[in-house]
C-alpha cells in the first residue's frame, strides 16, 4: 500500500472520531507545549545571564570563595576572606592594573531630609571601580586610603537615585542607618550614567545600588599574615593592564591564593578560593541553568509520556472496534504489513498532530513566562524542530504494539466479529 493511501485512510478514521482523536492528541499537545515552554524559559535565562558577562570586559579576573567545586552559584554565596593585605599584595603583581574589593554594609534605611527608603544593604568599594565608567552627574568619591578621615561621600546608580522622590542628585545629603542603629551622614557625589552591573558577580539586572568608600565597610578580621585588624571582602575584581595578559594574571593570582594569601587561611575547609575569568564564570552559570532546565524539562517529558500512553490506549480500543474492518481488508488482500502500516500511520498522525499544535502553544507559554520574568525572549529553534520529531517518535512508539496486534488479527475471527 502506498504512503499517500495509508495517510488518506488513517486520516479518514481519525475524522470518524473527532472528539476522541482531539482528546488523545491533547496529551501530546500538553507534553510538547510544556517542554517547549520550559526549554524556552531556560534558553532565555541563559542568554540573558551569559549576555551580562559577555558585556563585561575581558580583562577581569574575579576572586570568590564559594562552597566546594560543585559549579554552584558563583558569587552569591561568596564568603568574606580577602583581606586588605591580599588586595595590596595582588595589586603589586606583574600585569595587574588595579584591584577592586567589594563588600556589602548591612543597613536598615537611607533617608534624605524627611524621606526614608528602606534598604538592607549598600556596597563598599574603592574609586578604582569607576575608572572606566561614565557618570550622568558628578563623579567617584575620594580615595579612602592613606589614613585620612573617611570621606563622607556616596555614588549611586540611576535606579537608586530614582528611589527618592524627585531623584537623588549631586550635593544631596543622605543619612544611612547601619547595623546597630549607627548613623552615617554622606553627600551624594556622583550619579552613574546607567544601571548596568559594574561587576557581574554582584548580581544581574538593574538593581538600585549605593556605593560607599571601603573605609565605611564594617566587616573586619585579624589578618593571619600581619596580625592586624583589617577589612575583609567577599569579592575582589582584579583588572589586568592588558586583556592579553588576563590568563597569566589569573594563574599568578590563583597561585598566590592557593599558597600565601590570607584568604587561603581564612576560608572554611570546604570552601574553594578561586580566581575566575569571565569565561569560567559563564561556563559555570551555563551549567547551573542547564541543569535546572533539564530538571524542569524532565518533568515535562513525563507529561509527554502520559500522552504517549494515551495514544497507545486509544489505538488499542480502535483496533478492537475495527476488528471487522481489519478482517475485511485482509479478505480483500491486505497483508499484515499493510494493516500494521495503516494503524501506525494513524498513531503517527495523532502524535505529529499533537506536536504541531503543541509547538505554538509552548512558544506562547514560553513568551508569557519570559515576559513575566522580564527577560528578552530567546527561542530555542532546535527544540521547535525536535518537537515535531518527538511527536513522530511518540506516535510510532505508542502505536507500535496496537498496530502489531491489529496486524495479527485472524481474518476468519475478525469477519465473524460483531
Amino acid at each position: 500500500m502506498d504512503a499517500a493511501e495509508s495517510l488518506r485512510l488513517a486520516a479518514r478514521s481519525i475524522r470518524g472520531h473527532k472528539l476522541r482523536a482531539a482528546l488523545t492528541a491533547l496529551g501530546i499537545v500538553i507534553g510538547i507545549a510544556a517542554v517547549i515552554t520550559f526549554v524556552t524559559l531556560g534558553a532565555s535565562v541563559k542568554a540573558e545571564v551569559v549576555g551580562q558577562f559577555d558585556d563585561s570586559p575581558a580583562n577581569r579576573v574575579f576572586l570568590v570563595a564559594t562552597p566546594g567545586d560543585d559549579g554552584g552559584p558563583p558569587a552569591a554565596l561568596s564568603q568574606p576572606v580577602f583581606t586588605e593585605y591580599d588586595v595590596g599584595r595582588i595589586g603589586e603583581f606583574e600585569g595587574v592594573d588595579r584591584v577592586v574589593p567589594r563588600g556589602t554594609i548591612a543597613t536598615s534605611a537611607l533617608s534624605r531630609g524627611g524621606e526614608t527608603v528602606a534598604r538592607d544593604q549598600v556596597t563598599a568599594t574603592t574609586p578604582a571601580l569607576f575608572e572606566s565608567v561614565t557618570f550622568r552627574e558628578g563623579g567617584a568619591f575620594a580615595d579612602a586610603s592613606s589614613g585620612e578621615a573617611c570621606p563622607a561621600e556616596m555614588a549611586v546608580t540611576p535606579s537608586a537615585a530614582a528611589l527618592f522622590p524627585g531623584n537623588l542628585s549631586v550635593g544631596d545629603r543622605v543619612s544611612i542607618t547601619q547595623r546597630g542603629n549607627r548613623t552615617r551622614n554622606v553627600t551624594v557625589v556622583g550619579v552613574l550614567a546607567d544601571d548596568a552591573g559594574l561587576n557581574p558577580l554582584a548580581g544581574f539586572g538593574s538593581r538600585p545600588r549605593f556605593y560607599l568608600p571601603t573605609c565605611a565597610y564594617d566587616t573586619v578580621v585579624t589578618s593571619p599574615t600581619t596580625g592586624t585588624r583589617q577589612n575583609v571582602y567577599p569579592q575582589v575584581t582584579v583588572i589586568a593592564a592588558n586583556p592579553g595578559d588576563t590568563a597569566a594574571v589569573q594563574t599568578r593570582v590563583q597561585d598566590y591564593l592557593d599558597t600565601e594569601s590570607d584568604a587561603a587561611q581564612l576560608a572554611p575547609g570546604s570552601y574553594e578560593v578561586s580566581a575566575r575569568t569571565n569565561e569560567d564564570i559563564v561556563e559555570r552559570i551555563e551549567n547551573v541553568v542547564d541543569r535546572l532546565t533539564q530538571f524542569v524539562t524532565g518533568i515535562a517529558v513525563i507529561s509527554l509520556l502520559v500522552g504517549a500512553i494515551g495514544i497507545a490506549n486509544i489505538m488499542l480500543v480502535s483496533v478492537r472496534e475495527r476488528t471487522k474492518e481489519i478482517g475485511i481488508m485482509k479478505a480483500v488482500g491486505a497483508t499484515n504489513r499493510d494493516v500494521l502500516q495503516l494503524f501506525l500511520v494513524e498513531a503517527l498522525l495523532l502524535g505529529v498532530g499533537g506536536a504541531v499544535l503543541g509547538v505554538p502553544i509552548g512558544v506562547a507559554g514560553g513568551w508569557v513566562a519570559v515576559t513575566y520574568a522580564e527577560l528578552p525572549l530567546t527561542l530555542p529553534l532546535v527544540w521547535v524542530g525536535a518537537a515535531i520529531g518527538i511527536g513522530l517518535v511518540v506516535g510510532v512508539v505508542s502505536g507500535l504494539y496496537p498496530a502489531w496486534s491489529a496486524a495479527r488479527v485472524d481474518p476468519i475471527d475478525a469477519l465473524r466479529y460483531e
Partner: protein
Amino acid sequence: MTGDVASAEPPAVELDAVSRTYTRGEPVYALDDVSLSLARGSYTAVMGPSGSGKSTLLNLVGCLDTPTAGTVSVAGEDVSTLATRQRARVRGQEVGFVFQTFNLMPRLTAEENVALPLVFQEVAREERLERARDLLDRVGLGDRTDHRPSELSGGQRQRVAIARALVTDPAIVLADEPTGNVDTETGERIMGLLDDLHAAGNTILLVTHQRAIADRAERIVRLRDGEIEGIDQVDVEGAA
C-alpha cells in the same frame, strides 16, 4: 500445480483430499477428505446444514484458512502451504468475496469500497477509482459512487460488495449466503446479477442453505458433517 493436464488451463479451484481439523479437546473434522474441482467459468453451489463444513470450505478456497491435510489450488497455484504474505496476495488477486453481511468499510464511499482491493495491489489511485466506477456502472449503481454504505439500501450494499469482488478480475468469486440479509425481491435481483456474471465468464462458488437459490447454479455440492454427500447437476441448458 496439481494434476498435469497437458495444454488445458488449470481449473479455477481444485481441492485434493482436503481435510481441516480443529482441536478443541478432541479433534473435530470440519472437512474430511474432500476433493472437488471447479472449472473455469463454472457456477457451483454448496449446500448443507450449519456445521456441515460450508464455511470451512469457503475459507480454504479463499485462502483465509489452510488445510490440515491435502492440497488446495487456486488458478493452478497450490495455496495450502503458502506463507501468510503470499496468501494475502492470492486473496487480493485471485479471490473475490461476497459476504452475507456485505462487509463494506463504513467510512469509505461506494467507489472507494470497490477500489479497496486494488489499494493493496499498488494500483494507482486514478486507475483504481476508474475501474471501480466502471464496475459500479455494471451493477447498476453508477449514480451512487459517492455514497457511504449507510446511505445505501441492503440490496445496493450487496451490489457494491459484488462490484468489489470483481474489481481485481479474480479467478473465483466466493459468495457466502449473498441473499441472506435482503428481502426476497432484492435477493432475486442479486441472484440475477450473479447469473449475469456467470454468463460473462466468471467462476462462482455460492454457499447457501436455500434450495431455490442453489438451483441457480450449474451443479450443487451437498455437504454433511464435513464430507461431500453428493453432487447434483442442475442442468438448465441441457449440457450433461
